[in-house]
C-alpha cells in the first residue's frame, strides 16, 4: 500500500509536468504557425529585420538572463558575422548562402572565445567595460580594414541560391529561410537553457561562490555560455547581411550594443520570448516613427520607453505577463 502511495505522488507531479510541457509545445506551435503566415499579412523584409534582431536579442539574453553576464560589446559579434559573410558572398560568388552564414557564425564563435577568455575574469561593471572596450577595438578595426569598405560599408552582397538551387532573391523564399535560421537559433537557446548546463548557469547567476563551492568550474561554464551567445549573435549578423545585402558600421557601433540591451529589458530579461517581443517592439517603433512626423523624436521616445520600463515593469513585458499568469491561473 505504502509503495503504491509513494509511486502515485511523483506520477501526479509528472503528469502535471507533462501537461505543462504540452501546453508549452502547443504555444510554440501556435507561434510557429503565426510565423509561417506572417509574410502574407505584413511586409516580409520588415519581418526579416525583426527576426534577425530577435535572434540577436535572444543571444544577448542567454548571457544576461541566464548567466547574469551583462555584455556591452555584443555589436562586435553581430558585425563580425555580418562582415565575414558579406565579404565571402560578394568576393567569392561560388559560395552558397548557407556556407557563408556558417562561416560568419564560426567567426562569431572564434571572436567570442577570444573576448570571453579575456572578459570572464572580471565581474559586473568591469565585465561590461572590458566587453565594451574590446568591441570598440573591433569597431576601429572595421573602419580601417580594407575589406569592409570603411564607413561606406560593404554593399551588393548577393543573396544567391540556397543549397545551390533555391533562389533567395524572392522576398518570400528569403523570409522562410530566415525564419528557419531563427528557429534553429531559438531551439539552440531553448535547449541550452533547459539543459543541466543551463541549470548550472542559473546557479552561477544566483550565487557564484556557492556554485564554486559545489565544485563547478564556474569560468568554464561562463566561457561556454559566452561563446554560444557570441556565435548566435554572429548568426544573426550573417543572416541580416544576407537579407539587406549589405554590412555597415552601424552594426559594429556601440549604439547597437545598447539597442540590444533595450530590446531585451523591454521584452523581459531571463524569459525566452521576451527578447523576441522586445526586438519586435523596438524595430516596429523605429520603422513607424521614421516615416511619421515624429521622425526626429525616435531616440527620445525610445529613451522614455526605456525609463518607463525600468521604473514600472522591471521584468519586462513578457516577464510581467508571465507573473500575472502565474498569479491568476495557478
Amino acid at each position, binding site marked *: 500500500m505504502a509503495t503504491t502511495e509513494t509511486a502515485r505522488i511523483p506520477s501526479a507531479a509528472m503528469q502535471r509536468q507533462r501537461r505543462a510541457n504540452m501546453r508549452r509545445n502547443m504555444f510554440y506551435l501556435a507561434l510557429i504557425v503565426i510565423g509561417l503566415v506572417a509574410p502574407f499579412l505584413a*511586409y516580409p523584409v520588415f519581418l526579416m529585420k525583426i527576426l534577425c534582431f530577435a535572434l540577436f536579442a535572444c543571444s544577448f539574453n542567454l548571457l544576461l538572463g541566464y548567466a547574469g553576464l551583462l555584455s556591452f560589446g555584443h555589436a562586435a559579434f553581430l558585425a563580425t558575422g555580418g562582415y565575414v559573410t558579406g565579404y565571402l558572398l560578394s568576393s567569392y560568388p561560388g559560395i552558397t548562402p548557407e556556407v557563408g552564414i556558417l562561416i560568419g557564425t564560426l567567426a562569431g564563435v572564434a571572436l567570442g572565445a577570444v573576448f570571453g577568455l579575456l572578459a570572464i575574469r572580471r565581474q559586473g561593471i568591469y565585465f561590461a567595460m572590458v566587453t565594451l572596450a574590446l568591441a570598440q577595438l573591433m569597431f576601429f578595426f572595421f573602419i580601417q580594414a580594407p575589406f569592409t569598405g570603411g564607413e561606406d560599408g560593404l554593399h551588393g552582397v548577393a543573396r544567391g541560391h540556397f543549397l545551390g538551387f533555391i533562389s533567395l532573391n524572392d522576398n518570400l523564399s528569403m523570409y522562410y529561410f530566415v525564419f528557419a535560421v531563427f528557429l534553429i537559433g531559438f531551439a539552440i537557446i531553448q535547449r541550452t537553457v533547459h539543459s543541466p548546463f543551463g541549470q548550472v548557469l542559473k546557479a552561477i547567476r544566483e550565487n557564484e561562490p556557492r556554485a564554486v563551492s559545489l565544485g563547478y568550474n564556474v569560468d568554464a561554464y561562463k566561457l561556454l555560455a559566452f561563446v554560444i551567445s557570441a556565435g548566435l549573435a554572429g548568426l544573426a549578423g550573417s543572416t541580416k547581411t544576407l537579407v539587406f545585402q*549589405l554590412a555597415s558600421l*552601424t552594426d559594429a557601433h556601440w549604439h547597437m550594443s545598447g539597442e540590444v540591451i533595450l530590446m531585451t529589458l523591454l521584452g523581459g530579461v531571463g524569459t525566452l520570448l521576451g527578447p523576441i517581443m522586445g526586438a519586435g517592439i523596438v524595430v516596429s517603433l523605429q*520603422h513607424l516613427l*521614421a516615416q511619421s512626423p515624429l*521622425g526626429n523624436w525616435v531616440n527620445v521616445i525610445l529613451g522614455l520607453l526605456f525609463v518607463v520600463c525600468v521604473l514600472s515593469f522591471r521584468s519586462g513585458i513578457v516577464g510581467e505577463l508571465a507573473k500575472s499568469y502565474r498569479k491568476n491561473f495557478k
Partner: protein
Amino acid sequence: MTLIKKALTTSIALATASAMAATAQANMSDNEVRIGYLADMSGTYRDLAGPGGLTAMEMAIEDFGGSVNDAPIVVFSADDRNSADVGANTVRGWVDQENVDMVGGLVASSVTIAVTKVIEESNGLALVSGSAASSITNEHCTPNHIHWVYDTYPLANGTAKAVVEQGGDTWFMLTADYAFGHALEGDVTKVVEENGGEIVGGVRHPFPTSDFSSYILQAQSSGAKIVGLANAGADTVNAITTASQFGVTQSGQQLAGLLIFLNDVHAMGLESTQNLLLTTGWYWDMDEQSREWAERYYERMERMPTMVQAGIYSSTMHYLKAVEEAGTDDPETVRAQMAEMPIEDFFARNGSIREDGRMIHDMYLAQVKTPEESTGEWDLYEILSTIPAEEAYRPLSESNCDLVQN
C-alpha cells in the same frame, strides 16, 4: 445588407473612376508621381538636409503646381538615422509596397550607396543631394541615380588650388584616419603639388575625435602656412574650434576647410571660423534669384538654406519638368529626359548631367567673413571666384565608372 450594397456600389464607382483616370494618364504609374524623401532627420546631418530638405522639396512641388499632367504628386518621407540598413530597408519598402518613382535627399554616403544598390536592382531613380563621396558617381555609379549638389572632388580641388594660387604654398594636413579622410588627403596633396605647393607635414587622427589640442599644436609647430582639414562633420567643427582657441589664425596660419557647410559656420560662429576658405556649390546671398528663393525658404524654416537644401529643390524641380516633358514617370525615360535638358536655375549655372550620373555645375570659392564684415546672422560668406563646371568636377577621362567608355 444595405451597407454591403453601399460598399459595393462605392467600390464599383471608384473602380470606374480610377479606370477612367488611368486612360487619361496612361503613362503615369498608379496615376501618381510618388517621390520619397530619405534623409537624416534627427542626427548629425539634420541641419544640413533634414526637415529643411523636405520643405525645399515641398516648395518645388508647390511651385510646380502640385501635379504633373493631372497626376498628383505624393511625397513620402523617412528618417534614415544615418544607418545603411535602415535607409536601404525603407527604400526597399517604398519600392515594393508604394511603388515610389523617385527617391531624393540622401545624405550619409553609406546610406546613399546602399540605397542606390536597391534602386538599381528595382530599376528606379534616385537623386542624391546630400552626399559628399565622389565614389558615388565613380566606382559606385549606376544608371539609376544622379548626384546633384557637390562631391569631395570639387571641394578639395577648388579649395586647394585657390589657396595655393593665393600664396598658401606650404600645407599641413589634418586627416581623419579612415578611407574618406585618406581619399580627401590624396586629392588635396595632388592638387597642391601640381600647383607648385608643398605638403610639409601631416597627422592622422582617429575618427571620431573630440580632443584636437595635440594635433593643432603639431600643426602650429610645423610652420606651414595652411592647415588643411581633411575630415568632416563634428571632427571639422572640433578641429576649427580648437584651432581658434589656440590662436592658429591669429598667429598667421590659415585653415582650409575641405568639407564644411553653411550650417557648420553658422553654428560655430564667425569668431572661430573667420577667414576660412572653402568651396561651395551655392550660397544663398550670391545673387538676386538665389536671395529671392532663400527668402521664401527662410519664411518657412527661419533658417537660411544650405546648398544641399537648395539642391533638393533644384533636383526635384528638374525631375518634375522632365516627367512633364517625357509624359511618363518611367525612371529610364525620365533619366534620359533629365540628361537632355540643360539645368539653369537659381541653384545651378551651366548645369548638365553626365553619363556617370554626375550633375556638373559652377562651383564657388568662398571665404568666411570676419565678425566686423558681417552685417547679419546669416551674412557669412564672401564669394571670391567661380570655378567653371568643367574644371570643378573629376574629368570623365579619370573615371572608374563602368558607364563611362574609357
